[in-house]
């Protein structure tokens, strides 16, 4: 039986049957049927709930005359993503702002939640960055195909017709490598940051770990920024041939 956080244990106590039924419907049999929900899944659910609450509260208190602090935070985040998308994608960037904002918030909260005692960094498990990278990968290809139709394939074959088969294989490799590089960068950085904080907590339980917790927060911000920026660059490349 794996070690469980209190939230994971609580979820497994009440939702193990539902989780087993969902996993069984796709022919997946968890190693521990009494605890099918793992810590990182519980953390993702928590991040999901936090973000839903955040958006619900901001939406309910939306005011032009008297914007509250949460509205200021939401507006700052949105304008940051809008400016960046406008700079990287150019014309028609508005369509992608929603996805990029949610992606950034999910990764950021998933990274920072590890600083709260009793919780774990969701992105320190390889499955979570892999999920974000795969969703981004499918999203930018979908947008590329949606805007360029069959012409999107031209991105993969290059300008020289007799080199097209080789270029196609190389481009497929190159695009698949993006999933791996996005995943490894986020996972490795957050895992290492977690480990460093943990080691210093073990060595010096008082005072010193605060420095490493601040470092963890810094790493979380930088990694979120890079992930979202690269997602923007990939979307920009996929939809660039529209113009």
């Amino acid at each position: 039986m794996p070690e469980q956080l209190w939230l994971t244990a609580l979820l497994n106590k009440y939702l193990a049957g539902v989780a087993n039924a969902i996993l069984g419907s796709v022919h997946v049999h968890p190693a521990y049927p009494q605890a099918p929900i793992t810590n990182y899944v519980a953390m993702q659910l928590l991040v999901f709930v936090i973000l839903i609450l955040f958006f619900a509260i901001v939406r309910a208190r939306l005011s032009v005359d008297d914007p509250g602090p949460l509205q200021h935070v939401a507006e700052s985040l949105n304008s940051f993503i809008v400016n960046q998308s406008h700079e990287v994608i150019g014309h028609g960037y508005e369509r992608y702002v929603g996805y990029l904002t949610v992606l950034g918030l999910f990764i950021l909260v998933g990274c920072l939640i590890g600083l709260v005692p009793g919780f774990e960094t969701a992105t320190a498990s390889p499955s979570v960055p892999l999920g974000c990278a795969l969703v981004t990968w499918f999203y930018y290809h979908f947008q590329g195909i949606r805007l360029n139709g069959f012409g999107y394939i031209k991105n993969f074959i290059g300008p020289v017709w007799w080199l097209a088969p080789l270029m196609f294989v190389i481009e497929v490799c190159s695009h698949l490598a993006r999933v791996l590089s996005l995943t490894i960068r986020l996972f490795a950085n957050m895992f290492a940051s977690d480990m460093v904080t943990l080691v210093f907590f073990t060595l010096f339980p008082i005072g010193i770990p605060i420095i490493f917790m601040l470092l963890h927060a810094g790493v979380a911000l930088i990694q979120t920024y890079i992930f979202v920026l690269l997602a923007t660059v990939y979307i920009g490349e996929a939809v660039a041939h529209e113009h």
Partner: protein
Amino acid sequence: MAAEDPDDKQSAAVVWARYSQIAFIIPAAVVVGLLLGKLLDYWLHTHWLFLVGIIVGSIAGFVDMIRMVTRKS
């Protein structure tokens, strides 16, 4: 109106994020090539396509890297 090329007005941050990919792109492409080669070996019952995968992955990594550093910024 003439469309703008997004690459024409990239800030330092975008260029920095792009260049941060360089450290990952070659190993990631080699691993992807190896995995694709292994998959083809498994499907076609061969024992040498993983080597082709590694070579194609390396080429893909280098092509992507060269393209990235020569992109106008």
